């Protein structure tokens, strides 16, 4: 076993982790420990843009962005944190540009911006161009740029190391335990500050836009150390995943004028969101799609709809909507313009569907996409562990793994990239400041034992046992069916029972690989254990919340209930596998809750 000492250790090398490392490393010795090479992180798959009220193409203000985010969150977001994020957004985006991010440009050379769901001009209620983009690979460019800057600043990377456990000494974070994939050797990273930036857990569901790696490691590790998870019942289903595959088709397609069409050829979003139509919030659009499918209005009676971005369709509806360009001329698109703005989307469709979106509509269905919930933090990225927001010294979280909460019950498109650059940066700064003023504590001799026990219990190659893949499949099916876009008490109770059964079966696995070199079977099995824990916490949190808000839509409680449920869920996973729930208030500053329509 090797022991390393750094002031700050960052778990995960996606946008939040790299941003945190970049800022922490300015003043503190910093290591990034990641199960993937940094450029493999899931931030790279984000497409449509990062939200900031630059106002490069039309009037816009951080206050409008703040209100849109509060409204998008269905009033569950903490308004102090949202205001902070939206104010910081403008500077953060300029900072990325200064680091070299190759944004697409306006004719006068400024950062180009496009409309996105839920982002509006607060006076007219019409969509506003707020998403700063680099074609349809904005996340790729953010990830590359931050990785490049980390190389420039000599950040130390431990790539292909799986973090398994968090070391706490008398309630203070003192490092992590990790295993090196190539050798199975254990490493202890002794650090005064630990920043968790391991991303989301969308692999719980069958149809998902999420990478294989998105297995909720950070939240699971925290839960096992007695740290609660916040608002886990709120998980976003993105309206436009490629049918069956779940691969994301950016909302930017609708930003550029694409529309959703049902089996009767109708642009059905007009009925659900008369003002912004296809650019309503994601929860609203995903629910509308489910309702259309349920009414038998899928394409050819099947369980998908069309996303149509053919120039003739875009131009027809742009004319009907009276949509204009910034100079007041009518909005019309050409094939060339779409090829330039959406090259990756066109490539995905050609590769996976064998269709050309310039000529044919794309078959889509809602796909599990983003965790609004996660490890509770305040707006400085400090992890808070109870209803009174008590800080756990030395522990930080940023990005999708965290719940600040800026997304509340539903995240707006472009706010995830924003979340990770703003809170990644502030977690990094805060962690470095704290770590440099803190003395290292002596580590307990048994620091690696809990991690080792977890793997040992899975590493069984002899005797009877079950393959982990079957368990994972069954989990994904049951979560998709009962804890997806629409939920009922009955369905969720069934799901919970099934998950507990799977958890039992999980104790009796059998592996083919008991080697030490890249034993990916063992580590995949450990990851599935994380997903199972998170599925249980998600379902228990959702079952308890007897209202519908944002992404949490209960058929048995169809209305939002501010009197009883305007509060954040905190869920602890107890040793016996039961979930303990408590609640904490939402921070409301300027915007009292009101009815949410688009």
């Amino acid at each position, binding site marked *: 076993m090797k022991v390393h000492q750094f002031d700050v250790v960052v778990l995960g090398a996606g946008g939040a982790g790299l941003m945190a490392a970049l800022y922490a490393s300015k003043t503190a010795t910093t290591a990034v420990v990641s199960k993937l090479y940094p450029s493999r992180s899931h931030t790279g798959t984000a497409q449509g843009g990062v939200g900031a009220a630059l106002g490069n193409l039309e009037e816009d203000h951080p206050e409008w962005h703040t209100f849109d985010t509060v409204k998008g969150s269905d009033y569950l977001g903490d308004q102090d944190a949202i205001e902070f994020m939206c104010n910081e957004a403008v500077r953060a985006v300029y900072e990325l540009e200064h680091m070299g991010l190759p944004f697409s440009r306006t004719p006068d050379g400024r950062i180009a911006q496009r409309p996105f769901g839920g982002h509006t001009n607060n006076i007219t209620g019409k969509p506003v161009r707020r998403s700063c983009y680099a074609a349809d690979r904005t996340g790729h460019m953010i990830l590359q740029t931050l990785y490049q800057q980390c190389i420039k600043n000599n950040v130390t990377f431990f790539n292909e190391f799986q973090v398994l456990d968090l070391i706490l000494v008398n309630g203070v974070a003192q490092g992590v335990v990790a295993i090196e994939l190539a050798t199975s050797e254990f490493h202890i990273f002794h650090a005064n500050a630990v920043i968790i930036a391991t991303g989301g857990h969308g692999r719980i569901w069958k149809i998902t836009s999420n990478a294989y790696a998105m297995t909720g490691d950070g939240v699971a590790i925290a839960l096992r150390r007695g740290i609660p998870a916040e608002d886990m019942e709120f998980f976003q289903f993105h309206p436009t995943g490629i049918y069956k595959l779940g691969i994301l088709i950016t909302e930017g397609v609708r930003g550029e004028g694409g529309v959703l069409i049902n089996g009767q050829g109708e642009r059905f979003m007009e009925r659900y969101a008369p003002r912004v139509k296809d650019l309503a919030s994601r929860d609203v659009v995903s629910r509308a799609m489910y309702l259309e499918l349920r009414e038998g209005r899928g394409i050819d009676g099947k369980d998908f709809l069309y996303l149509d971005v053919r120039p003739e369709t875009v131009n027809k509806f742009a004319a009907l909507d009276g949509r204009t360009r910034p100079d007041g001329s009518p909005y019309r698109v050409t094939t060339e313009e779409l090829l330039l703005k959406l090259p990756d989307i066109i490539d995905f469709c050609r590769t*996976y569907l064998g269709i050309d979106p310039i000529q044919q509509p794309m078959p889509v269905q809602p796909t599990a996409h983003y965790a609004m919930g996660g490890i509770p933090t305040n707006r400085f990225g400090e992890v808070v562990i109870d209803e009174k927001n008590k800080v756990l010294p030395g522990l930080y979280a940023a990005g999708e793994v965290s719940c600040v909460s800026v997304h509340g019950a539903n995240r707006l498109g472009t706010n995830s990239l924003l979340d990770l650059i703003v809170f990644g940066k502030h977690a990094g700064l805060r962690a470095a400041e704290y770590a440099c003023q803190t003395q290292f504590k002596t580590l307990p001799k048994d620091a690696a034992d809990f991690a080792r026990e977890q793997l040992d219990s899975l590493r069984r190659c002899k005797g009877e046992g079950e393959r982990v893949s079957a368990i994972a499949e069954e989990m994904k099916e049951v979560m998709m069916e009962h804890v997806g876009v629409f939920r009922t008490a009955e369905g969720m109770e069934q799901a919970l029972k099934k998950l507990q059964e799977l958890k039992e079966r999980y104790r009796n696995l059998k592996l083919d690989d008991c080697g030490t070199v890249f034993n990916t079977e063992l580590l995949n099995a450990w990851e599935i254990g994380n997903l199972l824990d998170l599925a249980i916490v998600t379902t228990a949190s959702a079952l308890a919340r007897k209202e519908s808000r944002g992404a949490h839509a209960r058929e048995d409680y169809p209305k939002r209930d501010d009197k009883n449920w305007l509060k954040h869920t905190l869920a602890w996973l107890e040793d016996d596998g039961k979930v303990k729930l408590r609640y904490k208030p939402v921070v409301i500053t300027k915007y009292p809750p009101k009815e949410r329509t688009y």
Partner: protein
Amino acid sequence: MEIKVKILRFNPETDKRPHYQTFRVEAEPTDRVLDLLEKIKGYQDGSLAFRRSCAHGICGSDAMRINGMNRLACKTLVKDLSKGTITVEPLLGLSLIKDLIVDMDPFFEHYESVMPYLVNDEPPPLKERLQSPEERERFDDTTKCILCAACTTSCPSFWSNGRYVGPAAIVNAHRFIFDSRDRAGAERLRILSDQFGVYRCHTIFNCTLACPREIQITKAIGEIKRAIATGSLD
């Protein structure tokens, strides 16, 4: 339909040398080769080792040789391969660790050697640095690189001498050399005029054929050769 997948296996803890193993799997024509590998790993032999993450051609984890060509397993569909057995082997030119996993560290070291980051020490403006759409377009193609190594490990010059920085590193140098905001173009051109730089490229075009992002790699390398020869970026 049932498909035969022939995989080059190697376990350093038990095998002296790599050997082929053939699996039979049920597959749809629209399945990705990655889906087949997942089915084999999940239900036939859990010890099969390969890297993967996003599964749709963006993260660059799963470059491998499929029927002799460097491709991403997640971007190669069964229906797009010729009928019959599908052969899957690890990338060439990087040392083999286990099954389809090769040592990527030398690849990333080459990447780091070309200063793959924006250099500009002039104080930035309060807002963005301006860049015209034409200036932005000049290096658009090379911003698409996902560092999957399909190009570098398809290059015979790289196979013959692993000290050659390789096409991927040159692509990433190009991305900055032709960025109007960057100020270290001359230094990168000096690095690439080294004996292990661009002149190891003999315009074989394997890299361009292998790139899953369809980057015009040989063209980008040619532009750098010309810039070195003429001392001008125009």
